[in-house]
């Protein structure tokens, strides 16, 4: 369908949010102490479209930290796929790109409806970046890959908002607020706001994706991995905060009745020590990525090279979450990539 743009007065914003809340479960960025998180909204006043970046990426609304896959009881198993209609509101473009990647990865080869069902039932509304986080580099990473999985995109202008409607699901949003057709001037202004944001990142990659992918892959045996990972805690924070990480563990949990339970998946991280470890029996084990530096390298290879052919660019969107949340501050892809490119 053709893109259509609408205008919403500043004063009509709260009633638009209320309209969405009444219609369906609404997830949006809210303040949490000095940070921001995506969370279910209970009042329009909570919505903070002026957030810089959220602690966890919005993928959690579609791919939750813990998710029941199958429930079981004495009689056997039953599917636990129960999607809920949701609106995911206020997603920055880099996080939309990340969700696009997950859409492809959960769909390819074997379709995983445990993800795809909730994805189908989620309406995604992007929003422009009003404040730039301290470690962001989305302006220079994977520039050839554009976000495409969202249903609408809202841009803040001085006196209101321009809502660009991209899909039938996005069009449904119009009934929740008092929208009018946007003027050409408003559409142009919104486009300029989004374009101007691209230069505002504090961190920058100085090479293109193809060049980076080739050189990082060629650096597999470099001593850099050992040097960079020397202070790594193997805590997996870089994995957990990453919008494109989707590794998970599957475990069975008994209910309190001890006769029924759930087979559940939980986010996992390739930086964790036992991620690739298997038991051989008689107490013997084999850890296929035993060394910290191997696990550290695997994450960056996965972000910068391994998935590029499938995704059309790197599996990194430049949100800067790993850089900002790594305690010893060694996870920053820009620093790692730039040192490899200079080397």
């Amino acid at each position, binding site marked *: 369908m053709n893109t259509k743009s609408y205008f919403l007065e500043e004063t009509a914003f709260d009633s638009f949010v209320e309209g969405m809340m009444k219609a369906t479960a609404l997830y949006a960025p809210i303040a949490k102490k000095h940070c921001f998180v995506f969370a279910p909204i209970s009042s329009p006043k909570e919505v903070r479209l002026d957030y810089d970046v959220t602690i966890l990426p919005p993928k959690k609304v579609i791919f939750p930290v813990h998710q029941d896959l199958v429930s079981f009881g004495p009689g056997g198993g039953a599917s636990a796929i129960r999607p809920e209609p949701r609106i995911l509101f206020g997603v920055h473009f880099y996080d939309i790109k990340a969700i696009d990647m997950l859409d492809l990865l959960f769909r390819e080869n*074997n379709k995983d*409806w445990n993800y795809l*069902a909730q994805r189908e039932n989620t309406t995604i509304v992007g929003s422009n970046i009003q404040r730039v986080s301290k470690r962001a580099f989305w302006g220079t990473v994977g520039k050839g890959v554009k976000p495409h999985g969202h249903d609408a995109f809202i841009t803040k202008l001085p006196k209101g908002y321009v809502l660009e409607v991209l899909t039938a699901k996005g069009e449904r949003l119009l009934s929740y607020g008092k929208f009018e057709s946007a003027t050409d001037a408003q559409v142009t202004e919104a486009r300029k706001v989004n374009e101007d944001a691209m230069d505002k990142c504090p961190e920058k990659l100085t090479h293109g994706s193809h060049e980076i992918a080739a050189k990082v892959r060629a650096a597999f045996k470099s001593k850099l991995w050992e040097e960079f990972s020397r202070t790594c805690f193997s805590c997996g924070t870089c994995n957990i905060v990453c919008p494109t990480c989707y590794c998970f563990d*599957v475990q069975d949990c008994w209910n309190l009745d001890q006769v029924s339970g759930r087979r559940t998946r939980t986010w996992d991280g390739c930086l964790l020590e036992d*991620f690739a470890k298997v038991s051989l029996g008689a107490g013997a084990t084999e850890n296929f*990525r035993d060394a910290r530096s191997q696990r550290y390298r695997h994450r960056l290879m996965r972000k910068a090279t*391994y998935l590029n052919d499938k995704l059309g660019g790197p599996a990194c969107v430049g949100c800067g979450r790993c850089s900002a949340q790594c305690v010893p501050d060694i996870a920053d892809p820009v620093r790692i990539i730039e040192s490899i490119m200079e080397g």
Partner: protein
Amino acid sequence: MSVSIRSEETTYPNIFMPRPAEIVHARQDTAMEKHFTLKMMDGEPMIFEPGQMLEVSVFGFGEIPIGFASSPTRTQSFDIVVRKVGRVSGAVTALERGQTLYVRGPLGHGFPMDKLRGQDILVVAGGIGLCPTRSLILYILDRRSEFKNFSLFFGVKSPQEQLFLDDLALWRKSTDVKFYETVDRPDDKWKGNVGVITTLFRKTQIDPGTRVIICGPPIMYKFVIAELDGIGVSRNNIYVDLERRMKCGIGKCGHCQINDEYVCLDGPVFCFKDIEHLEEAFR
């Protein structure tokens, strides 16, 4: 006529949903390994290729990846062998005949039968590496005329660790397979070869054109491949059946990755030539 008042629900296929299988036979083969024969309970037969695998589970304990240990030429049931090493395998090996296991599969890519037919075949199996390769061994024996010379090397640490004792007794006498076995640490009764599996290469002549299948503990591969290089077997003709932590079995969860390959999806059987360049594939 009754009218449904429920709104129409979309039912999504769930790739994590396992199917029940009845244990029709269970035997403790060694101190650690238990051999199960299973039959699907939902009436749908299990159709698989030699070398493919299953996620096997007991509800409340979890799932583990296990290779098929029988040949698809035997269609009434199928076999798996489970080594008791942890929580899930402990729950599986506690089950007996008449009880139910849950399985998902078949998963992954097995042995390339098109490339093996009409060729000389050597299977090199170390320890429980004999379980997944048994799917191929029995296939070849069942369709013996489709293959040329067939040799089998089997090595274990001690005689007590030998599996499939009935099969071994048959293979020792069979003219359909040239069977060579060895143990690292013999006991008083052992009269056969002593030494690691590569010592068996001195027992027979392997033609350089042979297609070779290797499955065993991670440490075994490089030594066997060195022997094959010495004989002049092309690395295009060597197939390795690899073990990794295949948690989901469908190429999503990430645990089994070797660089950018998913063992559960692209393997567990790989042509050696295709993965020898991957730094994480072999020790």
